C-alpha cells in the first residue's frame, strides 16, 4: 500500500511537466497581443511595449519562456501578472475561498445525489424515481447561469433570505447558495449514476445470495447494494472536485466570489501565461490527489480490488 502510494506520487511528476507544457503552449497560442491590449484603444508607445515585452519574457521564444517559468517555480517564484502582482499572492487569495466553495458543492451533490439516487434506484419506475428524474432534467436543461441568477434573485433580492453576493473571506453559511448552484449539474450526474448502479447491483449475484442467506433487507441494501454501487459515483466525485474548483467561473461571477474561476478567466482573457499555468498546476495537483484517494477507496468499496 505504501509502495503503491509512493509510485502514484512519483507519477505526478510527468503529469506536472506535461500539463504545464500543454497549458503554457495553449496560452502562447492565444490569439492577440496581450501587451497591445493593455493600452486599450489608445496608441501604445513602442518604447513602453518593448520594455513590457522584455519584463515578461515575451520577447523570448516559446520554449525559453516555458523554461524560465519552470525555473522560477523551483525557487517558488511563480512570476507576475501584468498588473505587477506576484502570482503566488493571487493564488493565496483565491484558493482558500474556492476550496471552501468546491467542498460545499461536493458535499451537497454527494449527499443529495447519493441519497436521492439510492432511493430512486430501489424502486425504479416508482413515483419518487419519476420525480427525481424530472428534477435532474430541470437541472440539465437549464444552464447554470440561469439557475444562478434565478436563485440569487429569489433568495437574495426578493425574499431577502441571504445576501445576494458573497465577497471576500466568506463563511460556510454564506457559501451554501452558491455551492448549491455550483453543484447542481453534478448533482444530476451523481443521482443518475447512483440510481443505475443501485438498480444494477440489486440484481447482482452476491445480493441475491445475501438475500437468500436470509439477511434483512436494510442490511442487504446498505452493505451489499450501496457499497458496491458507489465505485462509479466515487470516481465521478473525485474527478469533479478539480472541475468544480476550476469551473466555478460563472457561479463565482454571479455571486461575486473572488475565487479561482475568476482569476483563471481574467488571466486567460489577458494571456497571462504564468498566472494561468500556476492556477492550473495547483488544480492538477488537487485533481491528482483526489484521484489517488478515489483509487484507494476502490479497495475499500470492492474487496476484490487490491493495490500492491
Amino acid at each position, binding site marked *: 500500500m505504501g509502495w503503491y502510494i509512493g509510485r502514484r506520487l512519483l507519477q505526478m511528476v510527468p503529469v506536472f511537466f506535461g500539463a504545464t507544457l500543454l497549458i503554457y503552449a495553449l496560452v502562447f497560442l492565444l490569439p492577440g497581443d496581450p501587451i497591445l491590449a493593455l493600452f486599450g484603444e489608445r496608441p501604445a508607445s513602442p518604447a513602453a511595449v518593448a520594455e513590457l515585452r522584455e519584463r515578461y519574457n515575451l520577447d523570448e521564444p516559446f520554449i525559453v519562456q516555458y523554461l524560465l517559468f519552470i525555473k522560477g517555480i523551483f525557487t517558488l517564484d511563480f512570476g507576475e501578472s501584468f498588473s505587477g502582482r506576484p502570482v503566488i499572492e493571487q493564488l493565496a487569495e483565491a484558493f482558500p475561498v474556492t476550496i471552501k466553495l468546491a467542498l460545499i458543492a461536493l458535499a451537497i451533490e454527494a449527499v443529495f445525489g447519493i441519497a436521492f439516487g439510492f432511493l430512486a434506484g430501489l424502486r425504479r419506475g416508482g413515483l419518487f424515481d419519476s420525480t427525481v428524474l424530472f428534477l435532474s432534467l430541470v437541472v440539465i436543461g437549464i444552464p447554470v447561469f440561469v439557475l444562478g441568477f*434565478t436563485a440569487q434573485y429569489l433568495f437574495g433580492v426578493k425574499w431577502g433570505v441571504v445576501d445576494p453576493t458573497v465577497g471576500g473571506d466568506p463563511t460556510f453559511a454564506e457559501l451554501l447558495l452558491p455551492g448549491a448552484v455550483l453543484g447542481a449539474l453534478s448533482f444530476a450526474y451523481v443521482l*443518475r449514476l447512483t440510481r443505475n448502479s443501485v438498480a444494477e447491483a440489486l440484481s447482482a449475484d452476491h445480493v441475491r445470495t445475501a438475500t437468500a442467506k436470509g439477511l434483512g433487507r436494510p442490511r442487504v441494501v446498505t452493505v451489499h447494494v450501496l457499497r458496491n454501487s458507489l465505485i462509479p459515483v466515487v470516481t465521478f466525485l473525485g474527478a469533479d472536485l478539480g472541475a468544480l474548483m476550476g*469551473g466555478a467561473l*460563472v457561479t463565482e461571477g454571479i455571486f461575486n466570489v473572488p475565487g479561482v474561476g475568476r482569476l483563471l478567466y481574467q488571466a486567460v482573457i489577458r494571456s497571462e501565461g504564468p498566472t494561468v499555468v500556476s492556477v492550473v498546476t495547483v488544480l*492538477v495537483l488537487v485533481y491528482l490527489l483526489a484521484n489517488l484517494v478515489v483509487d484507494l477507496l476502490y479497495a475499500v468499496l470492492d474487496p476484490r480490488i487490491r493495490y500492491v
Partner: protein
Amino acid sequence: MSETTVRPGQEHYVAPLDTTPLAAVDAVDESTPSASLWGDAWKQLRRRPLFIVPSLIIVLLIVVALFPSLFTSVNPRYQELSRALEGGSEGHPLGFTRLGTDVYARLVHGARASISVGLITTAIVVVVGGVVGALAGFFGGWIDALLSRLVDMFFALPLILGAIVMLQALQGRNVWTVALTLSLFGWPQVARIMRSSVLQVRGNEYVTAAKSLGLGRFSTLARHVLPNALGPVIVIATISLGTFIAAEATLSFLGIGLPSSVVSWGGDISNAVPSVRTDPWILLWPSIALSVTVLSFLMLGDALRDALDPKGRTR
C-alpha cells in the same frame, strides 16, 4: 497501477478439456456470443414502451433537424425589432425574441445545430474516452499508467482557454469546432468512468473464467468485459448529450459559442437571459426543447442499458 488479486477461494481449478463435459457448453457460447447479445436486446427493446416513446421523439427531432422547412416557412433570422418580446400571434405562435425574430421558427431551425453538437460531441467522447479507459483498466500496468497520466493532463485544461485556442486554430465557429472543443473536455471523464467500470468488471468470475478457458485478451475485453462495463458509460453519455447541448449555451454566454448566423437552442437560451425576470417565456421554449431531447436520450439510454444487461434481461 492497480493489480487485481484473486482472493483465496475465488480462483477456479479448470480441468483439462478432454476430461470435462464443460467443453461442449463453452463451444456453444463462443460461437454466437455477440449476435445473441444484441439480438436478444433488440427483441426485448421493441416491445417496451420506455424504448418506443423516446425513440419516436428522437426520430421526430431528427426529422425536424433535417427538414426544418417542413415545419415552418418563417425565416428564423428575419428581424422585426419593433415587435421584440411580443407574445404569440397569427403566424407567430410563440411570439418574438428580444431582437424581434420568431421564437417558433428559431426553435425549429435550432434543432439541427443543437442536436448535431450533442450527438457529435457524445460520439467523439464515448469512442475516445471509452477506448482509452477500457484499455487502461483492462490491461493495467504501464499501459494504465501511461493512459491515465494522459487523461490527468487533459483534466487540467481550463475550458475557456482550450475553447479560445480551438476557435483560433480551427479558423471559425461552427458546429464542428464547438463539438471538438467540448469533446476535448468531455473525453477524460468518460475515460475515468470506463476505466473504473472495467476494473470492477474484470474482477468478476465470468471474466476469470473466460481467461482461464483460453480466450484471447482482446476477445475477453470485447465480449465479456465491455458489454458489462458499459452501464455507467451509457448513463454518463446520455446525460452528457444534454449537457453538451446546454454547454453550448454556456459557451455562447461566455462569447465563444456558435456565431449568430447559426441558430441554436443554446444560443437562444443565452440570448434570452437578460429577459429572464421580465419575459421568462422566451427562455422557456428552447429550454423545454432541450429538456425533451435530454429526457428522450436518457430514457433510451436506460432501456438500452437494461437490454444489454444479461441479468436484467432474464427478469
